[in-house]
């Protein structure tokens, strides 16, 4: 356990600089975006009401009230989130491949540590997972900040104060990242973690069998996906309307756990028996 924690800290340290960049870009972009968008909105309001002599009601009818949804639909908000998602997706691969292809082949060292090799696998997975949770937490804090900032920037009459759930639901896919229930959280992050383990194991298949491994890894990912959606396939194709929704969720959780356990077991086996430096 202690070695796992040491490895986790070590892996977190290795990603730290890039992570700080992602955090700074997200904060700056979203806050600057909010200031710019709200200023533009208020300038337009001034033009319509003061210069064009339109009433406030007709302005609000045409342009609507300003809310955080104006921000969440803009590139200022979506851009850094997309950047973080893409960076972390790339990092899923980079976290392994850099140890083989870096200037100094660090994988020798990692595989020769007097600890279970599975700890290396789990520490790398937990690094990605921690980073994701960190960025999502940052986003929640940022939304609170933005909710307060918008009150300073836009007068009450022009403003629609959305509750945090409203803000989250104003952005199409945000509810996946920030679910509104514990079950939702388990489903989103459980599925994410499972996908991460499957990808890690596919990478290890490639690292063990090289070119042949690309093909086998592809097959493995496909097979894992099919096992994961097997309850859905079963209920759609063979037994329509046979299961209650709660039963379906339980079956899905079970299928997900099988895929996750299979990925970890296979990763453990490959690291001990098949891996090549």
């Amino acid at each position, binding site marked *: 356990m202690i*070695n796992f924690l*040491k490895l986790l800290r*070590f892996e977190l340290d*290795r990603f730290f600089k890039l992570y700080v960049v992602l955090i700074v870009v997200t904060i700056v972009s979203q806050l600057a975006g909010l200031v710019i968008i709200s200023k533009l909105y208020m300038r337009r309001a001034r033009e319509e009401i003061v210069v064009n002599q339109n009433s406030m009601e007709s302005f609000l009818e045409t342009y609507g009230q300003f809310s955080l949804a104006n921000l969440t639909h803009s590139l200022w908000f979506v851009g850094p989130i997309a950047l973080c998602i893409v960076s972390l997706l790339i990092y899923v691969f980079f976290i392994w491949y850099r140890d083989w292809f*870096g*200037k*100094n*082949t*660090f*994988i*020798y*060292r990692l*595989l*020769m*540590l*007097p*600890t*279970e*090799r599975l700890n290396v696998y789990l520490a790398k997975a937990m690094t990605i997972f921690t980073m994701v949770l960190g960025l999502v937490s940052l986003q929640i804090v940022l939304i609170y900040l933005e909710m307060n900032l918008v009150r300073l920037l836009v007068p009450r009459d022009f403003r629609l104060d959305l509750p945090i759930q409203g803000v989250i639901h104003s952005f199409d896919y945000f509810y996946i990242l920030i679910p509104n229930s514990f079950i939702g959280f388990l489903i989103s992050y459980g599925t994410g973690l499972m996908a991460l383990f499957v990808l890690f194991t596919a990478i290890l298949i490639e690292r*063990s069998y090289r070119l042949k491994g690309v093909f086998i890894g592809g097959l493995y990912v496909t097979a894992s996906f099919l096992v994961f959606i097997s309850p859905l396939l079963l209920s759609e194709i063979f037994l329509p309307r046979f299961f209650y929704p709660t039963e379906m969720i339980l079956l899905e959780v079970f299928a997900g756990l099988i895929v996750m356990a299979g990925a970890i077991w296979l990763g453990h086996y490959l690291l*001990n*028996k*098949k*891996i*090549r*430096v």
Partner: protein
Amino acid sequence: MIEVREITKRFGRKEVLKGVSFTAEKGEITCLIGVNGVGKTTIMNAIMNLTPIQSGEILIDGQKINKRSYEKIMFIPDAITMLPQMTIQQAMQFMDDFYESWNEKRAKELLDFFKLEEGNKISNLSKGNTAKINLLLGLALDVDYLLMDEPFSGIDIFSREQIADVFTSHLVEDRGVIITTHEISDIEHLIDKAVILNDGTVVKSFYTEEMREKEGKSVIDVLREVHLQ
């Protein structure tokens, strides 16, 4: 004792090792000699479980390699296996964090011996100094066996001399060492046992001293004979 028994290894269709067997004892320096591509590094990797073998068996003091074995045996590859952005001090700290067998006192002693500064970044070191740090990170572990892959390859003459001095010092004494080389002349005087590899098999294995005394041949003489056959 490290026992390598009848190991075979294929890369695709190419059979690199065709039943290699040899032993390496504690307190002896065993040298694997062969031209480039003969499979010396593959044997080292196989001993450390860094590459799978198709058949055969490798035992370290009678046991198959497991996580605890890495406190007992260490491999020093031909390139340093620490992150280039680390300083020497950070690399030493990393070793200290993970290995119970890390001997800080010996590490400092080696640092002095090689005249290196702890604060230097690994990526800024010359090739010779990088090789020395690589060696230091292995030698400063209180392990029974050390595997070294071409420790003299591509480094300047003064660094070679310094590294060669290590072999005759207390830093290596009593340990079992397996060293590979394709340039035997550099280390002939240091080794106890030679294992000559050719075409994926061990063609000859002998004690150098015994060979000199009984047959009056140096390692190079024996190598010449083997290659002329």
